């Protein structure tokens, strides 16, 4: 089938549509881009084939991590284990840490549904251990990267982390 006329015609249709939607997705603010993108976008979204490649643009200027604290029905505070344990300084991370990527996605304060989902996960997890939580609070700690000149002078200065309250979520 690979060299037949039918295959070539079918693939031509697929190619024209796929390349058009790829171009239109990056130019969907233009009139033509919008016209093309709207009817064909299902091709991209169904298989998650977006063409956004702004990797490290802009480059991150800080390191952040999340901390979780539960409050029991009796009002006692419970520190919950992080989504991804913080690695030791001497560790070489061979494996790509999916939990770390998930935690990074949750750093955005606007992603409330993800925060709610993480909180519910902790509620259920604690319940299995016999601890009944009323709510889970999520806090982000942000440490700005040192400027290059500063890093040369003192690579490990005493730094105060920025604390950002991400919200408090009730257990269902």
């Amino acid at each position, binding site marked *: 089938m690979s060299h037949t006329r039918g295959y070539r015609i079918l693939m031509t249709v697929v*190619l024209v549509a796929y390349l058009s939607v790829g171009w239109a997705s990056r130019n969907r603010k233009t009139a033509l881009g919008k016209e093309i993108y709207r009817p064909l976008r299902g091709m991209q979204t169904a298989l998650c084939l977006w063409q*956004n490649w702004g990797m490290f643009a802009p480059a991150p*200027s800080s390191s952040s991590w999340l901390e979780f604290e539960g409050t029991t029905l009796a009002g006692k505070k419970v520190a919950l284990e992080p989504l991804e344990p913080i690695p030791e300084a*001497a560790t*070489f991370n061979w494996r*790509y840490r999916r939990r770390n990527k998930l935690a990074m996605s*949750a750093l955005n304060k606007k992603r409330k549904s993800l925060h*709610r989902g993480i909180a519910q996960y902790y509620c259920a997890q604690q319940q299995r251990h016999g601890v009944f939580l009323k709510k889970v609070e999520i806090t982000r700690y942000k440490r700005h990267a040192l400027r290059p000149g500063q890093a040369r002078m003192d690579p490990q200065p005493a730094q105060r982390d920025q604390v950002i309250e991400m919200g408090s979520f009730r257990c269902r």
Partner: protein
Amino acid sequence: MPLSQIVAGLGRVWRSWSWFWFRPVTASGLGIMRILMGVMLVMTSIDLIPDLVLLVGPDGVHSAAAAEKGMRMGRWTWFDQVDSMQTVYLIHGATLLANLLFLLGFRSRTMGILSVLAHAALYQRNGWFMNGGDRLVREFTLYISLVPCGAAYSVDAWLARRKAARRGAGPSSPLIPILAHRLIQIQLCVMYLASGADKYATKSWRGGNALYYAISSESYQRSAELSAPLLTTELGQSLLAMATSITCYWEMGFFLLVLWRPTRWLALIMGLGIHLGIHVLLMVAYFSSASVWGYLTFVPYDWVERVRDRMGWSQEA
């Protein structure tokens, strides 16, 4: 203009189009590429097993309702219909099997398409744990599944040879359309151009500090000890500033460098070095390996035959 001239003109356009997209090339190179992509897919599936409960389980961190709310257009996933972890593991086991069969080349195109669907289903259920490298793997797997990617170095090829031998036919070198090679080439050129342009628009890349800051981030860092000499010494920082500029300009110029034959190898060798650096210093999943995998489409299409001839290996082997 007479109709005959229009028809002749259209015929020429169609022939040029066909030459560009469907010209036959030897199948061996893509056979090797299918195996390597299969390894990446299998490793992704195995890697996910310990975190399935948290990431895509019915009681995981991202409920199906929230996922549906976040991605309204073209959303589908078989994980929405799942309400037990046993079924999640069963589906994931079937995914791993499809990845393995794709690697081995049994019903290669079908297994390739199934692997893409399974990968997309995971993303549609919870895209928060995936990155650009995963997307590249999905795209490249789809591209090679559009052509007979199992025509060489596969169970499919072995079965076809056995069938031919039974009929008394001799061994033949299979040919496949160049379509997948072209799509991978275009994908890489578009990706680097878009990425380079986005980078150039930011202050840290133009100022030469971007790689310093990227490597400083503990969220991406592979090893603090390995990064320290680059981050805290003058020489290390100068090297990073140089690498920042090289990466940005190389990405923007990749398509020109790789199109022009005299600079093609330079573009590919530079890319290899940049991706090796990224892979060693930063955690970006399969982004570097998938990108470098794509470089195989820029080397001569009969590279496997050339290597085989040089090493004195017979085709049968």
